């Protein structure tokens, strides 16, 4: 046959791959395909420059399972998307964002949507390749010169020699009856390797390595320590151009970036009308001598006060309140001339001082002592005083303070 035109192949020794019929219009090809289908061949295919409507039924191709594969892949993507967000935001690293619940479905939808699309799309590609047996680096038809026209204006049908029904004369006769423009033998390809070219394999290897790299770097960062400043991958997200505390802002006439409340307004929950509770004062402005009704002298409050005193007051006033806290010891050891010793809280004038005035001292500070109102909550300031009162009592207790049943032990 006219293998003369073909590209180099020692055709003499290469076995027959199949019979190739060529047509010059799609209708003829569809007719031929119907004949081959009816003759019940299995290993055969048609090749065209563009998709031809009606070719699937003409070849007897069953609807593909691809949609089902993609459907399940999409569903998997959706579940993975939601599950991953559940794991990160509820289990692994719970973090309140915008006051929303840890797990907010609404926030998960966009990402679940993306993973659904991603899984579906990649699966479509992968499954399509797999179902078609691709990639297929070598094919005997590649050696046929005339087959190059399949990308232009020619339509081909190939019946492979491995088909059970293949018979050199019968098959030829069958194809002959479809009036092909040319009918040709195709020899097996003995020249081209069936392996992927090294260039492509190399490129894949490089890409795979590059893809693993970020994960490797992230892992390294998690298991090792570094004294280098962090790398800002997205600098404008890490350092957002917002006004920080105490900064100037050109937006406002007074250039103050930090804004006070709008005149005549009070922030939610900050009305603080109760003078006794919030300012330690009675009506008329005198210091309150009693605790506000919200602060009951309970064991729980006492414990809380002890804790807060230990945190906020003891560093200066000492755990027992004698004005000998760690900071004072250190300042004294360094001989700091300007240091004022924290007041010994076991002095009579402080024992007599109204609780309201003590509250005021904690809130706003007194002389050299700074205020702690912005750090310690209102309730805890009162709890601290509750505990302070117990401390003062501990160094100036009268025998009557001991329960009657225990008094005998004192004598």
């Amino acid at each position: 046959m006219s293998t003369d035109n073909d590209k180099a192949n020692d055709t003499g020794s290469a076995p027959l791959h199949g019979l190739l019929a060529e047509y010059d219009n799609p209708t003829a090809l569809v007719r031929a395909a119907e004949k081959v289908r009816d003759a019940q061949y299995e290993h055969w295919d048609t090749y065209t420059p563009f998709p031809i409507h009606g070719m699937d039924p003409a070849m007897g191709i069953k609807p593909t399972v691809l949609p089902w594969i993609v459907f399940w892949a999409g569903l998997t993507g959706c579940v993975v998307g939601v599950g991953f967000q559940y794991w990160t935001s509820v289990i692994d690293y719970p973090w309140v964002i915008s006051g929303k619940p840890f797990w907010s479905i609404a926030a998960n939808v966009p990402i679940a949507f993306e993973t659904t699309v991603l899984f579906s799309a990649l699966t479509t590609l992968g499954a399509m390749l797999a179902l078609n047996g691709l990639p297929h680096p070598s094919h005997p038809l590649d050696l046929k010169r005339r087959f190059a026209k399949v990308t232009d204006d020619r339509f081909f049908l190939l019946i492979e020699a491995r088909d059970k029904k293949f018979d050199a004369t019968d098959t030829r006769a069958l194809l002959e009856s479809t009036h092909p423009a040319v009918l040709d033998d195709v020899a097996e390809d003995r020249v081209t390797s069936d392996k992927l070219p090294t260039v492509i394999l190399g490129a894949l290897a490089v890409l795979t390595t590059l893809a693993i790299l970020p994960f490797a770097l992230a892992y390294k960062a998690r298991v090792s320590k570094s004294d280098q400043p962090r790398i800002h991958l997205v600098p404008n997200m890490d350092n957002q151009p917002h006004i920080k505390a105490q900064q100037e802002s050109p937006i406002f006439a007074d250039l103050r970036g930090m804004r006070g409340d709008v005149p005549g307004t009070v922030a939610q929950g900050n009305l603080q009308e109760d003078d006794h509770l919030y300012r330690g004062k009675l009506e008329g402005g005198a210091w309150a001598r009693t605790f506000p009704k919200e602060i009951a002298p309970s064991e729980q409050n006492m414990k809380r006060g002890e804790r807060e005193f230990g945190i906020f007051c003891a560093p200066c006033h000492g755990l027992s309140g004698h004005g000998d806290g760690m900071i004072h010891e250190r300042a004294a050891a360094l001989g700091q001339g300007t240091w004022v010793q924290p007041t010994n809280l076991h002095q009579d004038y402080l024992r007599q001082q109204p609780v309201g005035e003590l509250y005021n001292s904690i809130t706003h500070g007194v002389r050299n002592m700074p205020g702690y109102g912005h750090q310690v909550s209102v309730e805890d300031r009162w709890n601290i005083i509750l505990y302070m009162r117990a401390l003062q009592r501990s160094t100036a207790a009268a025998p009557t303070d001991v329960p009657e049943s225990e008094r005998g032990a004192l004598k």
Partner: protein
Amino acid sequence: MANTDKAGKSPKQQPAQGSTSAAGVTLPNGDNVSSEGLADNVFKIAGAVGVVALLASLGLGVSAGDDLAQFSFSYLVAYAFVLALGLGCLFWVTLQHLVNAHWSVVVRRLGELFAANMPLLALLSLPILIPIVMGNHALYVWTDHAKVEASHLLHGKAGYLNVGFFLGRMVFYFVFWSALSRFWLKRSVAQDLKPEAGVTRRWQGIAAPSMILVALTLTFSAIDLLMSLDAAWFSTMFGVYFFSGAFMSANCLLALAAMWLQGRGRLVKSVSVHHLHDLGKMTFGFVVFWAYIAFSQFMLIWYANIPEETAWYKVRFEGDWKYVAIFLLVGHFIVPFLGMMSKHVKRRRGALTAWTLWLLIMQYVDLYYLVQPTRLARVLEEAPAGEAVNATLPFHLLDLTCLLALVALFIAGAAFNARKKNLVPVNDPRLEKSLAFTNL
């Protein structure tokens, strides 16, 4: 495209046989595409039903003695429903011309007939517009001068939201919609009588700027008629939200109309399962698009959590309304999404009929959900803090009669447009390809 224009000159494209009058034509494939003996009957029956229902609605509305409140809201929902169908069809037809679509030629005339209802829809907007002119404030708070003066927010919007400008915009919308839709129908029918070379190309040129205007007018009409019900609220997504439902329902309508006509012996061979499949795909696509838009609007507002934006959703999760919200999510998206995904569903007439009907119902529910909670929002605004407010669904007989009236009149209008016309543009140069269209 150049091909098709040349084809228009070829002898194959002589006027279809026997067409001294455009109607009464049989296609080369022997299909009956005439509206003869159908359009008149539909017009009479649907028209009578529509007029009676409309009169009944007006009677019920006036006698309710609530300053037209119930009537106005029920009528607006039903009106938005048919307006969406009309605008959806207008968009659909313009789109087919814009992209020079071949497949859709056999159903395009149906779209043209429905879209050409625009003058009728202008007339039907009067029960909304006349009360506004007469000083009734049942629908739009911003029409009430006293309220506008009292509210800083409304005052700030008064430059746009005022009766004069509103009416002016309405007139502009309807003039444009009527002109464009009548143009498509008229030119297309003229082609039935006398094919003209090169018109496909010219139509495409006209479709492009028209499309931009359709998009703008559709968006602003949605803002004016529906979004301004809650004048303090705004969403930049509202226009496209309304569009998504409009286009989806138009595709449902076209599929249903084609199948109904086939049941009456028309278009039997012309409209194949492939065309229905494509209409089904468009419907399915816009089910998803609706969900995408609806969720995008919701998520942004939910995330930002700004009171002036969340107020709109807050009412719509109040009382029974939250069940409507869930019903929309399930019935307008999840169920049809899974149900219509398979191609077999879209290619089976029974299944396609059921799904398109269902989605039309959901489109009505969606509009009901956009409009009706406004009244609850106003009650809540006036109610003293902490007082329980009735948040059950405000179903009323008027909802039904208004819907019946407007849908019947809409169908009657399309039937009126179809009199003495073919149901397929028989001389469109793309018809041959459309008839041979397959999509598998």
